[in-house]
């Protein structure tokens, strides 16, 4: 528990390092790219956070604990771990109104895009999750994903949804760029609808 609190504080530090909501430049916006792959067995979700140069510097400052201007393996690991711990609670998924277990599929990836220095240089964080596709999932089913990571930072969201195995799904058009808001604690990052589900044995049905 003590460890979790520590990481919670670290993440709070990370968030504080980012600009205050309500007065930010575009360069400090966080881009989120959300992609979902819906199959009959699983729904895989990848959330990619792309920190532009200025926003990345704020994050890099929070990583550089020894303030030597270099992001060591330990510092990167600490950042990584903080995100991993928070992510599981921060990302929630509802399918047809019922909450689903959002399970990490892989560990998060931190891509510093070639620079491990404390500088204005973009970086990317990718989170991977999945949930089991409910047996009740059918044409018309909706998938909603909310994310509370960096929720106080204004964000631009791009969404893509793919269906496989006889499922076709499309993202709704209510997504997009999210304005900054002091009260914003979570963001709806995915709103998708199943538009077609072919049951493998439907032709055999009576």
């Amino acid at each position, binding site marked *: 528990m003590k460890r979790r609190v520590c990481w919670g504080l670290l993440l709070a530090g990370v968030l504080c390092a980012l600009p205050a909501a309500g007065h930010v430049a575009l360069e400090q916006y966080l881009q989120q790219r959300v992609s979902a792959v819906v199959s009959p067995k699983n729904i895989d979700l990848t959330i990619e956070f792309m920190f532009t140069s200025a926003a990345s510097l704020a994050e890099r400052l929070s990583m550089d604990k020894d303030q030597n201007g270099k992001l060591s393996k330990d510092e990167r690991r600490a950042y990584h771990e903080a995100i991993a711990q928070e992510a599981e609670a921060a990302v929630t998924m509802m399918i047809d109104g019922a909450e689903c277990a959002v399970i990490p599929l892989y560990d998060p990836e931190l891509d510093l895009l070639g620079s491990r220095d404390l500088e204005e240089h973009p970086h990317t964080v990718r989170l991977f999750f999945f949930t089991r596709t409910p047996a009740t999932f059918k044409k018309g089913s909706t998938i909603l994903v909310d994310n509370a990571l960096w929720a106080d930072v204004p964000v631009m969201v791009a969404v893509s*949804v793919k269906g496989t195995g006889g499922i076709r799904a499309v993202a709704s058009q209510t997504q997009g760029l999210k304005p900054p808001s002091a009260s914003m604690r979570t963001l709806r990052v995915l709103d998708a609808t199943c538009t077609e589900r072919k049951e493998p044995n439907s032709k055999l049905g009576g």
Partner: protein
Amino acid sequence: MKSLIACCCAFAILCAGPLWAQDTETLPGAPDLATALAKYHSYLFAPAVREELDAINRDMREIQRETRRATTDEAREAARTKREAIAARLSAILESCPATRAIEVTGQQTTLPPMEPISLPGDSGAFLFKVRTGDGPARCVTLTYDLSQHSNFRLPVEVAPGCTTWALISLERVPQLKTEMEIEFAIAGQPTTLLPVRTITPDHGTLSVTVLSDDTGKPAPAMMQLVWKTDGHDVRPGNAINFGPQFDSQGNWDGPRKTNYPGKLAGRYWCVPGPFNTTLAPGEYEIVVTRGGEHVAVHDTVTVVSNETVERTYRPRRWVDMRKHGWYSGDDHVHAQILSDQDAENLMAWIQAEDVHLANIVKMGDIYRTWFEQRGFGKDYRVVDKDYVLSPGQECPRTHNELGHTISMNIQNMIRNTEQYYLYDTVFDEVHRQGGLSGYCHTNSGIFYVHRDMSVNIPKDKVDFIEMLQFANMGTDLFYDFLNTGFKVTASAGSDVPWGGSVGEVRIYAYTGKKFTADRWFDAVKQGHTFVTNGIMIEFTVDDAMPGDEIVVTEDRPLRVHARAWGDAEREVPSKLDIIIHGASVKTAESADTNRDALEVDFEIPAGNGFWIAARAEGNDGSRAHTTPIYVVREGLRFWKYEGIRDLIAKRETSLAEIEKIVAEAVAGRNAMGQEDSTRTVQQLALQGPELLKRVEEAKAIYTELRATADREAALRK
């Protein structure tokens, strides 16, 4: 990319702490090992086993979650039982893995595996060792080494005493051909065991790719994905363009373009300007080639063999040629520096790869500075290659918390005076004086409080277009609100690269007729002869009028409405076509048939008291299209949504009140959030506030007059 593996795996292991100091869970370390195998090294297993590997990873992760959340002994016990079963499945496939090498270190006895070289599939790969030090319960360890970071190839592996350890060692950036290294098995209380290993990576093969234009049959630029199936990593084609230096360190400037193409096409693509050869590790590669929205993407799998060249020629089929219908594609929002011929060549290759005929290349500014410098503006600085044009424009003024972002096309000079920065009309007027077009960005989402300045300047007819499609997201709220208030607004679309993915991933089509020039294209946008799309195509007429046209009627006569949305069964087909009047659908055609490539409506509608009418379509891949409206004007009446007009006007007045509030805050030394702020942004807003408020008052007067007009129309409407 590959360093990510190291980062993830090292992170996972280091988090795990000392191996033998953990709890008594079954097969400790198994989740990390299962993940690494499933994500990167499934090649170690027979194809039939790979699906099971993925299933084990998911089950492992799921049970980890259940274990963490278990609050009762029963739940914990149930989770433990499940975990044991999954661990047994993992152990079984590890035992059956042909790549496993066994090491036995018990007492004074050390048995090393035969010393034959270990073949890796390319410059990355993995070793799987089964190290037995005793009869205790088995455990797993996962490590990653980037050999480019090691001058001494001694790779330590910490092994627990008295048990079996499954050790997965991932290697990255392995030199070609033969490499000697030593695996150092450190076992507590025992001497280190060194295992000399020789890796062999195969000779590379060559992939030679040519993409042809479907129009000419000659080599042409294209967007391309190239993925090594062995580990799922992107590979950069040999001549892929690096746009990074032209992006001023802004947005997503590094690596492949992360596109927002709809549906299954979304992904990471490189822009390749022409034929290329590239040497690759042998194995299977997945290739996707696209040439923009009017072509069908090509999907292929190629097998590269050592010391051989595999040649492929692709000719993405053009499923529609909108030029033949008189419509030419454009992207109103492309950021990139053009300071040299090479910069221009790079961008020209990109728009040709995406088959976008006109790109508005915008220099960007804010109240402090500018980005994406250009050599100049105006016709002399257009870059033209056949019917593809790069035309310099600007995204400026651009305020994030006050009035929104503006964009201009076809300007003769950059227009920027920071002492009038909040007086957007001064820029719009100058843009028009120069013969250009002015518009608002990002209205699809309404970000940056763009509704505020829209409420000031759209009523004054100072704006030509708005971006209502971006990042695969069509946002119609503001578009419909202003149309419903009786203002003509032209639909536009822009990718906003480098924040967006690729040029033309959303596009505006403008009707130039059969002859295309940049000037004709700009003129078409000025006339409102546009539609926007990120996939399916759409056509729309009312009588003989096209989008942007006005039909004036003197009586309530019938109007013939025709619309068609169409696609291609190999790419996307329309699933829905709506005719929209005053924001609401009045006619819909729908289809779930993936072989039906067109939806059409043809019907009569009474002109009534007038309206704006548009067509909107959805594709079965999630793509969207929308036309600019046709304006049906009944003489003496506005085309607005009369029954909701008072609420609509009130909305605009609320937006104006927001401007008054932020000016008042600025005068008091506070920013838009009411926080004390002495930045230039706030200081200038305070200084320019009086002039801005004059414009607000003028807008208010327009809205007051509109109320009076609504009152007058009450008697005229039937």
